[in-house]
């Protein structure tokens, strides 16, 4: 990279400043937790049977959720890859992206609408005269919900892997007369085997730190994860000592998962439906086509029906009355303000980090200090993942108690926590775009002597505007749908949309909850679509060609 000395200094200083801010924010929370944990109440957490049970359940449900999601995703990904010209295939692939862009709370409501006590399935069963309803609460429900959210993720990542296989392989398999079992053994499984550890690590991480789903579907102390137990300890039992122990356990668990994940290849979604018309002779056998069709139909129903339920029950609610209520308007304004602030913060910090990393990597002679900074900057995402939002909130909750009611600082804390949560995803969006932009423009800009504001206005902003808004809408969607941070701090004075939905659900105003969930889900989905439009267009073209 060709940078003038001041540009270089600014870039590195900006990155160091952002990193320091993040480290202080996370560090203070952790230090508070450690101090409280080592204090008088502290003992060996593993001697407490309650903590042990919660830890065991957290790991058990995460393990089972991961296994089920992966095992069920394999046939779905295979069927999608094998049938490049199936009617509705592209729509199913798009449908599978929805659970990822939908707030977890909304997904949970949709699942309740299908699998819940009053849900479609149980009503159909009792209509048939069966009295034993399917129970969505407890372990079964948590597994069901985790599979609903993670099966599509796993299937998409696997599909992307299968579509990267050279087209000649499939032709060769057809020419050699390989049956589906041989194709699986010699082509598909070797590809999947390489991807599964990374995907499994990602899903395990998501499930081990899952808060909202367990809060809604977990039943009592028998089905509680660390995160929900922290929330209960602080909000209901007023037992900060236990919350501290649980938080420290959670950090140890996430650290262990991150450590294992670091050894595995990271899954990537790039190259999905790259537009090559793949010819799959093995998919044209009538038997294969039928089984694939039935399988994909079930997958569509499984993923689509809770979403349909959100829409149908949402439209049944008195939306006009809901949106004209003062509390809705207040919550909307609060949510949007928090989301915008968190989104901007996440995007600006990400740009600073990405820019500093690029500036350092262009440095020919790196001092040990710079090299250390580069390593620290690239570890930002892991640092953020290490301390989940609930744990972070707990640390700050305890720290701020010294200065009065923590709820007074709620808005600021939620903004900061939401911004941090979004950071790893935002960096993933911005970094590749930034590197490409730099490569394209830096020589020309340097030779023309374009620097400072002129460069920002004429070169960088036009070139990076798109990834900027992509990342911003993505971060805003994450923040808008988040229930975790607000759950600890939320009160009547600070009401966000997800918190309002959750309150209505808790006070059995399910009709209102359904209506609000529909509105919130729609807004988040639109933001996510806006956020993935750049990547999505590519996929769409591919689908049309294929």
């Amino acid at each position: 990279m060709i940078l003038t000395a001041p540009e270089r200094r600014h870039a590195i200083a900006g990155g160091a400043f952002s990193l320091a801010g993040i480290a202080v924010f996370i560090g203070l929370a952790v230090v508070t937790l450690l101090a409280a944990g080592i204090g008088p109440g502290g003992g060996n957490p593993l001697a407490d049977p309650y903590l042990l049970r919660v830890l065991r359940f957290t790991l058990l449900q995460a393990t089972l959720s991961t296994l089920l999601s992966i095992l069920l995703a394999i046939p779905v990904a295979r069927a999608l890859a094998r049938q490049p010209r199936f009617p509705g295939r592209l729509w199913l692939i798009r449908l599978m992206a929805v659970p990822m862009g939908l707030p977890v709370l909304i997904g949970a409501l949709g699942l309740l609408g299908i699998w819940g006590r009053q849900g479609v399935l149980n009503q159909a069963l009792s209509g048939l005269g069966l009295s034993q309803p399917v129970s969505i609460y407890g372990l079964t429900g948590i597994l069901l919900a985790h599979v609903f959210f993670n099966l599509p993720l796993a299937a998409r990542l696997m599909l992307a892997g299968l579509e990267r296989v050279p087209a000649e392989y499939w032709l060769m398999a057809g020419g050699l007369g390989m049956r589906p079992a041989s194709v699986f053994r010699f082509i598909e499984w070797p590809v999947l085997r390489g991807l599964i550890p990374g995907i499994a690590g990602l899903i395990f991480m998501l499930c081990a730190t899952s808060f909202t789903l367990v809060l809604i579907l977990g039943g009592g102390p028998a089905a509680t994860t660390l995160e929900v137990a922290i929330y209960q300890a602080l909000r209901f039992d007023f037992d900060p000592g236990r919350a501290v122990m649980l938080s420290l356990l959670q950090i140890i668990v996430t650290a262990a998962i991150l450590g294992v994940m670091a050894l595995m290849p990271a899954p990537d979604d790039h190259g999905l439906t790259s537009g090559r018309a793949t010819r799959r002779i093995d998919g044209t056998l009538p038997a294969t086509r039928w089984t694939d069709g039935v399988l994909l139909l079930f997958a569509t129903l499984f993923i689509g029906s809770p979403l349909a339920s959100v829409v149908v029950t949402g439209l049944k609610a008195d939306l006009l009355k809901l949106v004209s209520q003062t509390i809705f308007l207040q919550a909307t304004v609060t949510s949007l303000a928090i989301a915008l602030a968190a989104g901007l913060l996440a995007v600006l910090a990400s740009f600073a980090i990405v820019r500093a990393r690029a500036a350092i990597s262009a440095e020919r002679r790196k001092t040990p200090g710079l090299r250390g900074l580069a390593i620290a900057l690239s570890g930002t995402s892991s640092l953020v993942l290490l301390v989940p939002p609930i744990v972070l909130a707990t640390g700050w909750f305890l720290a701020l108690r010294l200065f009065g009611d923590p709820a007074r600082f709620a808005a600021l804390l939620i903004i900061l926590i939401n911004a941090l949560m979004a950071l790893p995803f935002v960096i993933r969006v911005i970094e590749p775009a930034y590197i490409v932009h730099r490569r394209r423009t830096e020589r020309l800009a340097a030779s023309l002597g374009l620097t400072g504001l002129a460069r920002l206005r004429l070169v960088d902003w036009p070139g990076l505007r798109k990834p900027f808004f992509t990342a911003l809408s993505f971060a805003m969607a994450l923040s808008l749908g988040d229930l975790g941070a607000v759950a600890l701090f939320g009160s009547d004075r600070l009401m966000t949309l997800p918190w309002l939905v959750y309150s209505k659900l808790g006070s059995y105003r399910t009709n209102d909850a359904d209506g609000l969930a529909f509105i919130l889900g729609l807004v988040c989905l639109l933001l996510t679509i806006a956020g993935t439009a750049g990547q999505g267009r590519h996929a769409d073209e591919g689908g049309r060609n294929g």
Partner: protein
Amino acid sequence: MAEAEGIILAGVELRLGAHDFRFDCDLPQGKIIAVTGPSGSGKSTFLNLLAGFETPDRGGILLAGQDATSLHPSERPVSLVFQDNNLFAHLDLFTNVGLGISPSLKLSTEDRKRISEALARVGLAGFERRKPGTLSGGERQRAAFARALVRDKPILLLDEPFAALDPGLRAGMAELLTMLHRETGNTVLIVSHDPSEVRRLADHAVFVDGGAIRLSAPIDRFLTQDGIPALTTFLQH
């Protein structure tokens, strides 16, 4: 009789998107036949029809005396070699060649011996446990030839098999192909972009343009024709 054992396309018609293809030809058995033509002329479609990756809307395909019009690719009397990715990169050469004998890799002792012999025949003796990634481009194509050898089909289809290789390697590979062809007496159909390769290898040549065969003739006549400007341009390169 010998003519009937070669490759015959009788009134084959096919429509792909906005492109129409029409192929009629009778190619001699036991010869090396080169297929040439500009990009997008229909060479690949021609090859896909022979391999069974496309089926004609109308007309019939006879391969080595057998009606192959609606046969599955694996039931056709053909072996295939592409320009690249002929070998599964995660499988060793023994397995890659073995899949040519049995697609589920059920191999007898006799089969195992044949695989090693085939590898030795193409100059890759002792390479059984090597992965494709550790080989040069030329060696990978040799391994693909070894698989074609164990499959022992009357027709070998090659889609620009040497295009990804250094010019220096191409002559040696062409020599190996000719040698294997003489030993087995099979019919070889090779799609090529390279006029010197056509001159060096082919006994017979076909020129495809605009989705149809413009000329199919023994190599002497093919090289000396002057009625088709596009072909004259091609040969001058």
